């Protein structure tokens, strides 16, 4: 795997708050790199440093290509478009700004508009597009100059299911030409799209790797979930075998156990239910998801 971007001991501080705390990672050419973390984890700051929009206080970012700025494309979380220009006008303008001739820029713009389902509204002012269309135009603007690395910050936020599928398929289709760094809160989406992911929290890198590998390294492949009435926490905590569960997550009346051996774990849990005479309305056994890992690493505390 050829490294296209190397972040080395990146550090950034705002006043007394450390936003990014000496994180290092490599991004390989042609991969989709999922960049995950709760709100305020430091994702956007890291992306800004990687795309040279923000100067790090420490560390470095090296891109194995020419001009740092022009070899990256950025699709910010906010919709960043020129409202008083039509779709085609702004794409051609941005192409011109990247030294593309108007004809080349126009042909690339039409290709992007076609791929992202915007060709029918190419001459419509951006401010008159629907929210979903504006998001897709936001992506197109990041791609007009065929960047080597594309930073997609929450690209699917606010999209309807049809548009999500379209955007997801499009992201996959350009993977061979463009390395993609994707930030999202949608774990399912990240799992489906990403070749590798990294999870950061409080500015620290927690884990990096292939989603399947990350799930495997946790050692807990399965989750037993129960919908129970009563004081769940006090009921179960004394009975939990530390070797049996990685963690116990309680959400309202639902309790989820990450387990190594789902069959024996389920019978142990049912034994507790029987002893305590608890009313269980539902019991499920499922595979550990990326979200389970994410929650286990970052905790359940709501962030600002």
């Amino acid at each position, binding site marked *: 795997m050829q490294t296209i971007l190397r972040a080395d001991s990146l550090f950034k501080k705002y006043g007394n708050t450390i936003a990014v705390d000496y994180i290092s990672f490599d991004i390989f050419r042609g991969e989709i790199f999922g960049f995950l973390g709760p709100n305020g984890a430091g994702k956007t700051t890291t992306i800004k440093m990687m795309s040279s929009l923000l100067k790090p206080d420490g560390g470095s970012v090296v891109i194995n290509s020419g001009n740092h*700025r*022009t070899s990256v494309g950025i699709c*910010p979380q906010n919709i960043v478009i*020129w409202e*008083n220009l039509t779709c085609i*006008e702004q794409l051609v*303008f941005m192409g011109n*700004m990247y030294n593309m001739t108007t004809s080349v820029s126009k042909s690339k713009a039409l290709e992007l508009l076609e791929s992202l389902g915007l060709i029918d509204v190419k001459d419509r002012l951006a401010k008159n597009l629907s929210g979903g269309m504006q998001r897709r135009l936001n992506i197109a*603007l990041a791609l007009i100059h065929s960047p080597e690395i594309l930073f997609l910050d929450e690209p699917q936020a606010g999209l309807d299911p049809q548009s999500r599928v379209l955007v997801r398929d499009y992201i996959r289709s350009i993977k061979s030409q463009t390395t993609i760094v994707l930030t999202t809160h949608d774990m399912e989406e990240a799992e489906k799209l990403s070749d590798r992911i990294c999870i950061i929290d409080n500015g620290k890198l927690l884990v990096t790797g292939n989603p399947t590998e990350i799930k495997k390294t946790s050692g807990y492949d399965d989750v037993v979930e129960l919908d129970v009435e009563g004081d769940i926490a006090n009921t179960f905590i004394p009975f939990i075998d530390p070797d049996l569960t990685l963690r116990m997550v309680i959400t309202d009346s639902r309790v989820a156990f990450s387990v190594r051996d789902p069959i024996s774990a389920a019978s142990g849990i049912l034994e507790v239910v029987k002893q305590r005479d608890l009313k269980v309305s539902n019991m499920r056994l499922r595979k550990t998801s990326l979200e389970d890992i994410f929650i286990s690493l970052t905790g359940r505390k709501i962030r600002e």
Partner: protein
Amino acid sequence: MKILYSFIKTLIENLRDWKILILVVVFAPFFVYLMYAYIGSPQSSRYTVAVINNDKSGTYSSELIYEWENLATDDSIALLRIQIVTDSVTGKKLIKNKNADLLVTIPVDFSESLTRYISGKGDQISPLSSYGDQANVRFMVAASFVDYITYGFIGQKTNIIVPFNIDYEYAGRGKSLSEFDLYIPALLVLSVIMILFSAGASIVREFEKETIIRLSLSNLTSFQFLTALTLNQIIIGLICILLTFLAAFSVGYTTTGSVPLLILVGTLTCFSVIGISIITACFIDTMFGLLTLGCFPFFILMFFSDCFIPLPKVNLFNIIGNQVFLNDLLPTATATRAFNKIMNYNSGISDISFEIIWILAISSLYFFIGVWLFKRRFKN
């Protein structure tokens, strides 16, 4: 080429954001009509004199009133409007309501006393009495005119010749200047000051919508962006000047000032306002902020540039015999003076060379500060 593309893009955006453009373009022409309505036509900067003619003893009072009515400039523009009133209550009411500038009462025996004096039978002519608001400058001017004519009239009738004369030499283009004429240069500068909003909007829009990120990541430099913006706004500024001129011409204003000089000073003024706009825009994040906080520099430029309120001149220093006043730190103040010299006094380039150099120097200073601030924001 990027300057051209950026220029076209900004121009399209300005045209489509027509509400701000209309505000910018029609503001000063609107003020031209407003001033015209307030001050009156350019030919009628006349002072109203209310007259109570109590004289029943002869026709000298009527002759005197006729002389007042005929007081005119060299180009035959009457200076006094005579309004005959019957009693002092009505006359004083006119003064208090500012419907007249001066009230003159001619006594009952004015003609009789003058006749007696002329024939050597009397040694005193019954005096006229005046009434007016001393705080009103127009009262002082009207009273001076009336005094001047009256003393001349009495001198002529009594053959008393004052052995003294004042020779007047007139500045300007040989025609009288009305108050309205004097406001037009200031209104031209006001029209240019308005581009503070359109120029500011072109920058603030990029910050507010964060499209500046896209421009910053591209190969576009701050210099290219600001050059395109400046060219754009100079065009808008010159259109503003043209429309203001057309509005002034439509209500009778005339000038024989040099058009190339007007364009030169207009362009330099645009350049200076754009510099100030860039500085302003670098401290503002939203269009709302521009239209609220942006009014602060707008009012400073408007009020301290001699546009409407004549300010006391505080001399800072002299350069080669030219005084530099405190408000000359605003290039628009110097521009008002330059426009006035060109339009109302037919001044040529040699007469306003100092103003041109000063506007250029001070505008460049503002512009470079603006560029420096913008660069800091553009690449961060």
